[in-house]
């Protein structure tokens, strides 16, 4: 079954039949966690780097912020039986979209999202297996639970991540 993950949301599955997909990743990050051994897969579509700008919102929906969404994503996967040693982590997005594309690289939300994401992985002792971040193009990201294949669609082109 095909599950679409909307903005500031996460979907987790243990079914080998499922496809998780999220559209229109701009400066947002799409984070994929996959454990082939436990057959656990999840896709997070997260918007902003730090929950400190609105802690109440973060309590309401942790998947809005990278610093609350990614730890929650990891915990949910562990709860379903995923093991740290088997986790494959992949990320896409963090682009410079709209006005940010005109301004300096380091002021864009996208690159901040990437930095906070890397920080959380480092703190949790996890490597990112593959990343397609930055640039100015929006992306669609999907995880096929049957094969573990992660695909990115951007500008009409499909590439495996």
């Amino acid at each position, binding site marked *: 079954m095909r599950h679409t993950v909307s903005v500031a949301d996460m979907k987790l599955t243990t079914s080998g039949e499922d496809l998780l997909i999220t559209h229109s990743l701009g400066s947002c990050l799409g984070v994929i966690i996959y454990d082939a051994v436990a057959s656990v897969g999840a896709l997070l579509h997260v918007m902003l780097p*730090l929950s400190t700008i609105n802690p109440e919102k973060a309590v309401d929906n942790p998947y809005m912020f990278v610093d609350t969404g990614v730890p929650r994503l990891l915990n949910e996967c562990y709860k379903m039986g995923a093991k740290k040693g088997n986790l494959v982590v992949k990320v896409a997005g963090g682009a410079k979209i709209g006005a940010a594309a005109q301004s300096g690289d380091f002021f864009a939300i996208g690159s*901040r999202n990437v*930095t906070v994401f890397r920080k959380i992985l480092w703190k949790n002792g996890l490597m990112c297996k593959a990343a397609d971040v930055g640039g100015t193009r929006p992306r669609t990201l999907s995880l096929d639970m049957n094969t573990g294949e992660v695909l990115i669609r951007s500008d009409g082109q499909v590439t495996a991540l």
Partner: protein
Amino acid sequence: MTTRYDQVLQDVAAEAFSTLGFMFPMDEGDSADAGPLADPVVAEVCFSGPQSGALKVAVEPQLPAVLATNMTGADDQAPAEQQLDAFKEMANVICGNILPRIAGQEAVFDVHPPEICRQDAPGPGGQCVAQAGLLLDGGRVEVSLFLNA
């Protein structure tokens, strides 16, 4: 007229703090307008080679603790010794990365071990050829590059 390297220094420092220190620049407020840093911690890295000089990095006093905690990936605040070690290493990385940008990829420099300086210590000699200010999520940073004549 002497060439200025302000933008290059800004880019190199932001890249180093982001990649190694997991810190990012906050909103585009110009931290240069915010006045001098209060009680800064200062590190200096001297170098010699085709050109000699020094890189000076001044940060707000709370920044080394954040930096060390980020770099070690620890849950607790890093001990004082690690905080200064992390800060000195960051100064070293910025220095090592700015030199080929101003002197070319062929030039071989000896980068000396970074030192923590007293706030009121006289600055390095030579001419300041680049200055950059960053407002990071961990605090403010000022970086200056000095070249001897």
